[in-house]
């Protein structure tokens, strides 16, 4: 048991064979404006081209899984907000889904509709911010980012009315949702959803035909489908290679089967495809929202069998996953009959998507490394937990 101490900084250790050429070793991060958090990449460069890249993370490791072993099932719910802190409602849903599988709880219809509405709103604001951050790294000085944040503010105000908090929502419970919708909330959502297509059109007019964006992102950071499947890549990263795998369509969880929506797929697997996929997924989310908002049924929002205090699922284990905006977010729970989980595991999409970061960056310029990394769309809270 060594005590935590700060060692002096060591330069990155890379076993790179130098045959005549001198390779420059650069540590990009952890203090870096473009690394989406505290993240380090040890890069070995031959001039401007990347020869080797090793991602280093763990700067935000809070051992969330250990905290969950000491806390009860309900007490872990606010901690799941803090995993992917942009999308707290989808994190809550994934955890609630895993516990519902473990304990055999059923969710009433009204709660399922509320879950879909909040999840799709979360997806829209996440993709808008992801595009904004990617443009920021490309040098657009925050203009698309601030336009995205304008829409995001409206959605966060909706979340504050519903759950009490803009980002750390803590709204889903095992067997339903925590609190009933406030009066007039659905109408507010309808007004905002009606304004969203105009925002997406404006974003596309600003960015899609932009020659600078196309020159910098087309053909850069190409990912092949076989490698993507084998490396467990999920979400937009997987679909940009052309693989038709969206967990909403594959696992049929929740009530997604009732809504007609398409799954956009990419052709080339480069950064431009990922940008276009995020825009198209925002449009599809608007479609789902329009359909869901039409007929939200009345009824209870919690399973009558579920308990808030003294919740003890029977011994066993369960793995539940959803299509979070960043990819496949899964929770693996082992219960031994006590009020605390025996083993609680988060399957983080951002961490698994980083497996092939090196493969995508080899041979590219170091300036493109920042773009490729930005297009993976990670959040350090999820990578490190």
């Amino acid at each position, binding site marked *: *048991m*060594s*005590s*935590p101490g700060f*060692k002096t900084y060591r330069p990155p250790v890379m076993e790179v064979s130098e045959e005549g050429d001198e390779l420059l070793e650069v540590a990009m991060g952890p203090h870096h404006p473009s690394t989406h958090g505290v993240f380090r990449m040890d890069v070995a460069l031959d001039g401007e081209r990347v020869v080797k890249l090793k991602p280093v*993370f*763990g700067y935000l*490791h809070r*051992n969330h*899984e*250990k905290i969950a072993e000491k806390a009860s099932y309900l007490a872990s719910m606010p901690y799941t907000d803090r995993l992917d802190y942009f999308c707290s409602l989808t994190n809550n849903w994934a955890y609630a889904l895993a516990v519902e*599988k*473990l*304990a*055999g709880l059923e969710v009433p219809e009204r709660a399922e509709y509320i879950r879909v509405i909040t999840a799709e709103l979360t997806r829209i604001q996440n993709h808008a911010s992801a595009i904004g951050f990617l443009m920021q790294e490309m040098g657009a000085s925050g203009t698309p980012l601030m336009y995205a944040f304008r829409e995001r503010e409206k959605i966060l105000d909706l979340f504050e009315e519903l759950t009490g908090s803009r980002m750390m929502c803590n709204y889903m419970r095992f067997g339903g949702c925590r609190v009933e919708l406030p009066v007039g909330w659905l109408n507010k959502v309808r007004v905002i959803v009606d304004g969203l297509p105009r925002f997406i059109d404006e974003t596309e007019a600003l960015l899609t035909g932009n020659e600078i964006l196309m020159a910098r992102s087309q053909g850069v950071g190409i990912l092949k489908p076989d*490698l993507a*499947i*084998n*490396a*467990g*890549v*999920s979400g937009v990263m997987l679909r940009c290679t052309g*693989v*038709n*795998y969206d967990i909403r*369509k*594959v*696992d*049929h969880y929740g009530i997604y089967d009732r809504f007609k929506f398409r799954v956009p797929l990419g052709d080339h697997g480069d950064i431009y495809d990922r940008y276009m996929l995020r825009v198209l997924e925002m449009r599809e989310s608007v479609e789902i929202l329009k359909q869901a908002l039409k007929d939200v049924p009345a009824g209870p929002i919690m399973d009558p069998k579920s308990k808030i205090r003294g919740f003890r*699922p*029977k*011994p*066993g*284990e*369960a*793995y*539940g*996953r959803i299509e979070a905006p960043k990819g*496949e977010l*899964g929770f*693996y729970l*082992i*219960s031994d009959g006590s009020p605390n989980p*025996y*083993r609680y*595991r988060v*399957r983080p999409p951002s*961490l*698994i998507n*980083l*497996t*092939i970061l090196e493969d995508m960056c080899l041979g590219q310029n170091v300036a493109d490394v920042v773009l490729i990394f930005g297009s993976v769309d990670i959040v350090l809270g999820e990578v*490190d937990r």
Partner: protein
Amino acid sequence: MKTAEELLAIIKAALPGAGVELVSNPSPSAQHSLLLGSSTAVAVASFLRDHDELALDYCSNATGVDWPGKEVTEKMKVTKLVEGVETVVEETVKRVEPGYLEAVYHLYSVKHAHREIAGPVVLRMRTANRTDQVQLPSLTPVWRSAEFQEREIFDLFGIVFTGHPDLRRILMWDEYEDHPMRRDYVDPDDYEYEPTPHDEVLKRAEAQKAGIRESGVTA
């Protein structure tokens, strides 16, 4: 999608010496798992990935679990010499069942994603004990997604994966010498200020206060 028993039958038919067993899951999720033996795990995994019908080409999750050893008290009938006569006596014997570390993998199929789903295929591998025999074969050559996740299991639990291309710590710093996710991990005692103490911290604070009161010395 096949059930766990059908999978077991397919594996036994194709690889007879595989040493695979079924571990059932009592919860309503009904996600039963297959326990693989260490020597044949890579062969079974490759078979599952390359099989036409199963095509389990997507390793979604790889994680570790710590099962510490437990003391078992048993009553056994023993023949002993009692006052010169051989009698059968009942004795309570205590023995310690060694714990083990476990690696669990959840697999899905992307090639056949749009068939009817029935939950993931769960594989397990167990080490012999928690102290010195903690090696397991790495499944990274089969599924690349296990690369970072096996590094995390090594970092947080201590399972050494043989055959992993780059096994070093991933979340903790490289010189760290403990495995934080084990059940017997003790937090370092570095509290600066604890105004709302509970559980062990409260016990320690009260013991310290009592110690000061007894000896009359304040820190």
